[in-house]
């Protein structure tokens, strides 16, 4: 239900994404792996239109995202209102500094629904409490990010993304910046979410976790998807030479 076709992007003369094609089904979990600089984070940011891409299309359930259909002539960027509405169908969790430091955990989670989706305050708060309880932080609703550990902050960030009732979750190396002992609590939350019908795209270095929960793993190299397949195929029987080299290095 997410179709990504022909995405290209250049930064100052260097082509970072060179024609990405990807289809992600409803409720599918896809892991993106690759060396630093291969473009996986850029791709994630393009999917949510935090970066503009130079060419290609992204469709969600058949609707063209981020740009307007043009009969002929160059594509036109959608209006701010449309962009906001489309972004609400996806949730993003970043590697760090996710949370708004001047708001409590609960306020962070309620912000999107209240001011982006115009949900009423009581309803937003109810949803927020429920989600924070689900990620195991019902005790810390009124804590500020500065008072929370890294793992707790990431869990609030996940709750905040879920509060928008997204169809897709985009997760950009959400455990890379955490102290090792805090990684497990975040992975537990993600594992718990796999039972929902939410598609997920995870950029990650945590191979064992990817193997465990991903339906497919895509290896991004040099701005293209060099190989894609089920975890066992990718991790145990790699065919692409770049992928073999990559796996050898991180073992």
């Amino acid at each position, binding site marked *: 239900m997410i179709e990504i076709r022909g995405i290209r992007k250049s930064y100052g003369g260097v082509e970072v994404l060179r024609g990405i094609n990807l289809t992600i089904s409803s409720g599918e979990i896809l892991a993106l792996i690759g060396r630093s600089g291969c473009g996986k984070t850029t791709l994630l940011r393009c999917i949510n239109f935090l970066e503009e891409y130079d060419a290609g299309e992204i469709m969600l359930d058949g609707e063209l995202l981020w740009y307007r259909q043009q009969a002929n002539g160059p594509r036109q960027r959608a209006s701010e209102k449309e962009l906001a509405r489309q972004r*609400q169908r996806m949730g993003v969790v970043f590697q760090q*500094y996710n949370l*708004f430091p001047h708001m409590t955990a609960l306020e962070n989670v309620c912000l*999107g629904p209240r001011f*982006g989706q115009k949900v009423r305050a009581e309803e937003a708060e109810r949803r927020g409490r429920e989600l924070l309880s689900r990620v195991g932080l019902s005790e810390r609703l009124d804590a500020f990010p*500065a008072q929370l550990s890294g793992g707790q902050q990431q869990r609030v960030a996940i709750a905040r993304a879920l509060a928008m009732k997204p169809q897709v979750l985009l997760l950009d190396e959400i455990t890379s910046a955490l102290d090792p002992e805090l990684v497990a609590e975040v992975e537990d939350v993600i594992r718990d979410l796999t039972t929902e019908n939410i598609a997920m795209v995870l950029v990650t270095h945590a191979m064992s976790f990817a193997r465990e929960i991903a339906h497919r793993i895509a290896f991004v190299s040099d701005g293209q998807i060099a190989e894609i397949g089920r975890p066992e195929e990718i991790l145990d029987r790699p065919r692409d030479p770049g992928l073999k080299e990559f796996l050898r290095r991180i073992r």
Partner: protein
Amino acid sequence: MGQYRAWVEAYGVAFLEAAGWTLAVAVASFICALIWGALLFFARLRGGIWTDRIVDGYVQLLRNIPVLLPIYLIYFGFPLAGLLWPAAICGGIALVLQNGAYISEIFRGAYKAIDRVQPDAARSLGLLPWMAFRKVTLPQILVHSIPALGNQAVLLLKDTSLLSAITVVELTMQAKVLTERTGAAYAPFVVAAIFYLAMVSVIELLARTAHRSVRWK
């Protein structure tokens, strides 16, 4: 002792009045400078490249010339243009023009200090740009600016002393007048200094308290 007592009784009122003027000009100018600085900051944020360049030129100019020049500009220039306004107002306008430039830079520095993920996170939640700015960026700019703004307030207070050069009867002018009138060498200046130091201390205390009262840092 009696000599000092007589002195205080004779001139205490004059000093208090002058201190009142100093405060009045300082407070009024600071508030206006905050508004002007905010306008300049938004102009740079939202305007095109030419607005940015023009505002930057204005800021750079005012940062590299002494405060007396804008003061003389307004004080001598306004009457030429037919505006016969009181010296205190002329001085106040000059102070606003100057401090507004510095304040816009303070806001700009605070804005740049917010890490890049914040606006991305706000956008990814599907908030409209102005709503994201209002709820996420603006509160943080305001809080991060408090220390520097407190500093600027102190500078502005001290700059009010320059208005004595354009006949405004504030603390410095009053001290000068009393010194010449009573031949008391330099005692009035010391008294004026004490007033200034007291005011500066209050401003610094306010700024520190404001900054500390923010619970989320």
